[in-house]
């Protein structure tokens, strides 16, 4: 089905481990985004990408790495997970000047 998907939907990991959250969209949208959602903070932008091979930091990028070798994929990597990175992560995409669509979210727990 067309749309934006995230995997895994739930993940439990331990402090210090590397974790990669996947995001895939089928529309060939130019823009892709990663947000984290925490109680009392709303959604905060981690990284975004305006096109393949173009990425930029958002509001809370520390501890995260992104890449975008293909237009449809935008993986988010936690190089060494910390408890403060326990959160719900949302991927989103949109065409230039168009409406933004969100993935279903990934709930990550770091023990």
């Amino acid at each position, binding site marked *: 089905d067309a749309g934006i998907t995230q995997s895994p939907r739930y993940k439990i990991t331990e402090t210090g481990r590397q974790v990669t959250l996947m995001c895939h969209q089928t529309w060939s949208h130019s823009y892709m985004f990663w947000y984290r959602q925490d109680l009392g903070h709303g959604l905060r932008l981690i990284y975004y990408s305006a096109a393949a091979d173009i990425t930029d930091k958002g509001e809370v990028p520390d501890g995260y790495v992104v890449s975008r070798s293909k237009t449809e994929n935008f993986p988010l990597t936690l190089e060494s997970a910390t408890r403060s990175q326990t959160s719900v992560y949302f991927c989103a995409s949109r065409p230039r000047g168009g409406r933004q669509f*969100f993935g279903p979210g990934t709930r990550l727990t770091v023990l």
Partner: protein
Amino acid sequence: AQTVTQSQPEMSVQEAETVTLSCTYDTSESDYYLFWYKQPPSRQMILVIRQEAYKQQNATENRFSVNFQKAAKSFSLKISDSQLGDAAMYFCAYRSASAIPLQGGSEKLVFGKGTKLTVNP
């Protein structure tokens, strides 16, 4: 940088009544978009309504309407004839419409912290 403020962490309304959720924002830009998103317990982010800053007419989508006051930088959401299914977190969001980033503006969505709406039967 743009900021979005939702001053009501929680609101409640009786079924079939009307409720207004508040949102203010800060920007030096003249051309931008404002949005209200709904997030039910399923966590899915659902676009409720969108307003272009250059349009004076307030946007309306069925039972949802906004009161956009550009000079006051206010963007409130009115839900009429509230239904149990309207219970959710509601987020106000801002996005620059400028093709060229201006004073930190960009094509990113900036969100408020949200308002939790409870609908009582």
